[in-house]
């Protein structure tokens, strides 16, 4: 009993107990984070200053070549048409898909907000399906859809409607490039991306005080007025957050695109984004890890910048509740 009183009123509990507990609770997570995030990040930056290729790490990791990889990368962007295609594709793909993700998410959130709940839940679940589908299956769905022969769903639809007379390969036929390839990338990624905005915006709309909406209805506001003057201003920070977060996601996602390129649904130069270029340079085509690491470092710098911006918008301090007390 005396011990407990000591602990309670004089805070005499041994400090080492808390340290041991903290080490146990945080240890595994910290270890994994350091081994697989922190060290690799610095190592990628380091590799970008070495001539590493073909994973011959023993041979090349000791050689320092300064900014040579970065110079090569910028020379490629200036003179190599394929590399320029990567840059243009990345910009176009991100700009259009981002607009679709944010505006589409907003449209879905508003539409599901204004209808009865049992109908809206069904649609929300349906639109979340692509996000939860294994990426190989999701790409397989679009493989069947965009296939360049009579097997493709799109070809069959267009043939039936009389738009085309022969099956077309939208993503690889030089006649439709680059927009054919871009259209497929935008469509496939847009359908995954809108659900993020939908969920965030929907919960933001639901948290608007009912009195506000009732009051404006009593004053005779039409639905459009309600959206324009009440709802959108109230969720404006959510819109900014979703935009930044989705920009970051689009910049770094490449797995669907990798499969569509490998399966010859989209062209390999007009269907390649910066992240995919990085991956393919390191692992698939030329296996030039020095160059890939330079491309990855540039991506990381943009990524960290956007991540910090997103954090600032989130207003993290309000999100983190302080523990009420330590005994």
């Amino acid at each position, binding site marked *: 009993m005396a*011990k*407990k009183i000591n602990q309670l009123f004089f805070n005499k509990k041994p400090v080492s*107990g808390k340290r041991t*507990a*903290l080490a*146990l609770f*945080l*240890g595994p*997570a910290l270890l*994994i984070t350091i081994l*697989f*995030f922190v060290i*690799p*990040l610095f190592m*990628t930056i380091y590799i970008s200053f070495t001539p590493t290729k073909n*994973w011959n*790490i*023993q041979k090349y990791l000791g050689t320092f070549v300064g900014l040579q990889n970065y110079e090569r990368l910028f020379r490629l962007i200036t003179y190599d048409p394929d590399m320029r295609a990567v840059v243009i594709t990345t910009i176009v793909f991100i700009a259009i898909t981002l607009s679709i993700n944010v505006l589409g998410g907003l449209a*879905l959130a508003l*539409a*599901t907000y204004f*209808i*009865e709940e049992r*109908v809206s*839940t069904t649609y929300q*679940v349906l*639109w979340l*399906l692509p*996000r939860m*589908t294994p*990426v190989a*299956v999701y790409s*397989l*769905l679009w493989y*069947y859809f965009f296939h360049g*022969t009579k*097997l493709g769903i799109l070809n069959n639809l267009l043939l*039936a409607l009389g738009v085309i007379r022969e099956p077309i390969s939208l993503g690889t036929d030089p006649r439709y490039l680059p927009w054919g390839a871009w259209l497929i990338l935008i469509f496939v*990624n847009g359908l995954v991306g809108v659900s993020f905005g939908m*969920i*965030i915006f929907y919960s933001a709309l639901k948290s608007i005080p*009912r009195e506000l909406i*009732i009051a404006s*209805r*009593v004053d005779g506001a039409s639905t459009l007025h309600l959206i324009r003057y009440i709802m959108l201003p109230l969720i404006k920070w959510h819109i900014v957050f979703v935009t930044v977060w989705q920009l970051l*996601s689009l*910049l*770094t996602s490449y*797995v669907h695109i990798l499969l569509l390129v490998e399966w010859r649904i989209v062209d390999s130069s007009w269907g390649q984004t910066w992240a995919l270029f990085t*991956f393919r340079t390191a692992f698939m085509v030329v296996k030039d890890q020095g160059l890939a690491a330079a491309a990855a470092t540039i*991506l*990381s710098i943009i*990524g960290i910048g956007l991540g910090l911006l997103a*954090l600032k918008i*989130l207003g*993290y301090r309000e999100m*983190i509740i302080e*523990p009420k007390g*330590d*005994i």
Partner: protein
Amino acid sequence: MMVEMTDVETIGRRKYTVILGLALLFASLPLIMVYFVLIASSFANTMLTGASLGGIKLTIENWILFFQGKLTTTAGKIYETTDILKYILNTFIVAIGVAGICTLTSTLAGYAFSRIKFIGRSFLMQFLILLHAFPGVALIIAVYSIYVYTKLSMPQSFWTAYAFIYVIIARAALEVPMSIWIMKGFFDKIPWEIEWSAIVDGASRIRVWREIMLPLVKPGIAAVAIFSFLAGWEDLIYVLVFLPPTEKTLATYIESLLAEGSLEFIHLPVVAAAGTFYLLPTILFFIFARRLMLQTATGGIKA
């Protein structure tokens, strides 16, 4: 009074349900169509992609061929057999490994972030969000370099096992930051009084965590376990990069099938069966845990 208020607020909700519901249905048609074609084709003798749907028969032959590993032919009806059961098992091993590591580390760390004051706590929490958003492609180059380097110091007979262990931990690492945030959210909901009374009675933090908190955060543990299982189950890139080409999972198998094979030798409805089988955990999850998904979906996976 209340009835009147909701009436004013929900003005025209009936009317909107019909109009917007139809508009949403129209917008959702491509999604509904592609999923329908995949699942239905796995039960048909030919792909349901054609405009003319005559001559289609219902069959389970695709599923039998799939489980026998007969997805490609050399000529006519002579099949090449792949060890599909091994690939399914591999997919399970990776998924369960990722789920195990993620659930354990985040249940431990989530408690600390929710309940213990320590220096750097707020910084670490923000750091985790940054990590979650960090470009994975920038990490994998270095993560693979470390793998190549460490592999050489091991006996060759251990290489395959090492590849599996490494791929599981490396893939789990990607899910750890968000899992900690999800677990912290579940710990935050539990009243402090319960814990205080235990601590006053002299229990250590570790005992409180194990005996009092764990039973109370079971839904959180389930959520993290399911999400990290699905993350491991669906992984393509890490499995492709780290596992030797003989050790495929369903993802890398489907990937290599369509990348290397010519369409003359692949029976696409059997591939549809493979895809549908691979989709099963997602479908089960949708049926049994809809609410959980709507709450936590955006945290788990990015796109």
